[in-house]
């Protein structure tokens, strides 16, 4: 990692907020406060933080089932996110959506999504809007290694490539789709190789190195803003927890898991900040403490937020 003139402390803060948000959810889930399963993003924070650090508020993000990190990084309010996970009226979607269906239209977040691979065509259409309206806005699409096998991936990259759309497809390769490893689900080493089929740049980055992610995304986004079209970025990363909250992930080799934990993106970024003299130990501690206070408040808000009432059930099927 080499620090450029970027806001490394800002990305550090972003990652710490995501981690703290997720770990608070896990604690509450274990205490029985969270209805249903949650796909935690812990370990993959550098992808959301590094990519989205390059975005403006008027750019778009289309997310996945493992989407809390994307929403937070794009500016999502943790209290409203948490309340959505808790199924309360204070949530982004008044509890109707839940963890896999939270959106914030004011921030260009087109939602987390329950269907693997659904983000790709949607992000493609969002990219068309950005181009059609002659803006320099971009559409960023997150998806997993497992999703990259779906037809939606291939169809979307084809369309975006021939229309030269300002879409950045960001693959979060955490080496597993549920319990199925990448070796079992695809016959190539790097998902980025697939870019060649569509004649667009495909890059592989260390997805636990926030600077590397940032720089790769910066290049792709600058290109997209200036009419240079589509990029596929593959970020190699690792989820710290199971596929979802109840999954003990016994299918992963503990040694491999521990090796990956050594590459924790937050610890690496913290070490870089210290070694470059960009932050003091006290400043980093303050970041963590602020995040804990913020997420404690989000949990408090969610627990106190009222449950939706029955009269909410039929509201909002059609746009008026």
């Amino acid at each position: 990692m080499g620090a450029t003139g970027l806001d490394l402390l800002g990305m550090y803060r972003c990652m710490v907020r995501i981690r703290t948000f997720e770990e608070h959810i896990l604690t509450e889930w274990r205490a029985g406060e969270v209805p249903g399963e949650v796909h935690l993003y812990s370990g993959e924070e550098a992808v959301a933080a590094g990519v989205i650090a390059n975005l403006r508020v008027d750019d778009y993000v289309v997310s996945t089932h493992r989407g809390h990190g994307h929403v937070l990084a794009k500016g999502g309010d943790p209290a409203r996110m948490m309340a959505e996970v808790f199924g309360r009226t204070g949530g982004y979607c008044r509890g109707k959506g839940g963890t896999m269906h939270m959106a914030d239209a004011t921030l260009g977040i087109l939602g987390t999504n329950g269907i693997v691979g659904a983000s790709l065509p949607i992000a493609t259409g969002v990219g068309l809007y950005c181009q059609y309206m002659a803006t320099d806005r971009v559409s960023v699409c997150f998806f997993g290694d497992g999703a990259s096998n779906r037809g939606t991936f291939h169809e979307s990259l084809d369309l975006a490539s021939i229309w030269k759309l300002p879409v950045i497809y960001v693959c979060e390769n955490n080496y597993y789709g549920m319990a199925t490893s990448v070796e079992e689900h695809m016959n190539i080493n790097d998902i980025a190789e697939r870019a060649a089929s569509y004649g667009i740049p495909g890059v592989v980055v260390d997805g636990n190195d926030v600077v590397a992610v940032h720089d790769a995304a910066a290049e792709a986004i600058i290109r997209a803003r200036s009419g240079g079209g589509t990029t596929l970025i593959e970020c190699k990363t690792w989820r710290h927890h199971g596929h979802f909250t109840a999954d003990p992930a016994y299918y992963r080799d503990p040694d491999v898991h521990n090796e990956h934990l050594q590459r924790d993106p937050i610890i690496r970024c913290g070490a870089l900040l210290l070694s470059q003299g960009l932050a003091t130990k006290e400043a980093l501690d303050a970041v963590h403490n602020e995040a804990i206070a913020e997420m404690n408040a989000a949990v408090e808000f969610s627990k106190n937020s009222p449950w939706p009432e029955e009269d909410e059930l039929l509201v909002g099927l059609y746009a008026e």
Partner: protein
Amino acid sequence: MESKMMTFQAAAAEGVAQEMRRDPTVYCAGEEVSAHGQAYGVSGQGVFEEFGEKRVRNTPIIETAIVGHAVGAAAVGLRPVVELMFMDFLGICMDELANQAAKMHYMFAGQYKAPMVLRVSSGAVRPAGAHHSQSLEAWAAHVPGLKIVAPSTAADAKGLMITSIRDDNPVVFIEHRALLSVEGEVPAGDYTVPLGKARVTREGSDVTLVAWSAMVPTCLEAAGELAAEGIDAEVIDLRSLIPLDKEAILSSVAKTGKLVIAHEATRTNGFGAEIAAMVADEGFDLLKSPIRRVTAPDIPVPCSPALLKHFVPNAQKIRAAVITIS
């Protein structure tokens, strides 16, 4: 007949395993069905250890090809038992199911057939949101050429599974998540249940309750409450929607004169509408009161448990519907 207690899920797996032993052309495929995946999948349960990777095939997340490859394999001689982790993913493989599998035999004038089973898990059991909760049997029921099976007991899960695998047509086999862990006596050996034969689960004389899948136990619960109020409800478990056992429905309505249909799917164009229309067509004179449907409302499945509990029909709603015509 010898029998033993087992869960719905284990009974379905036993049906698959028995057919795999009997017929080497039967194989399973789907997401997370093999070694590690049994925490999530249903096809793999109990069969992976015995049959291994050749016959229990783990796939990538590729529903289009899960169903599409099964059509081809079935057309030339295998008997695929393939799986969608959630019925909500039907949209991803609808062409393969509705335009390819379902039409093959008719279009090609009988030269090809598609003997395959598509296992799907359905239902809003835990708060999982709008993409992991639906009951979409009506989508499939609108496609001529498909058969649709939706058992409610462990014994039927086994008996209907074996029959579905032996059937020469594409069968959508619906396994409601609320039922998977429910236990029942399951006959051992080569136990088959014919498609298109409903079962009278509870005999009664005052009103006919028609249901399938997880709504059968809910109707039985409602029937219990109604009995305490002096209303004697008959509960019919359709077991398969296509073919539909019209005879069982009509002969029950001939006895009771009253019909209430309960399903977890949303209301408009739900399969209850087809049953109501059939009875209005063919049994109008048998009816002493309007037909009632108890269904989910016409909305996506909400995630919050506070809303979900109002979405899924329950025994109280079924009871209330019966009261309106009693």
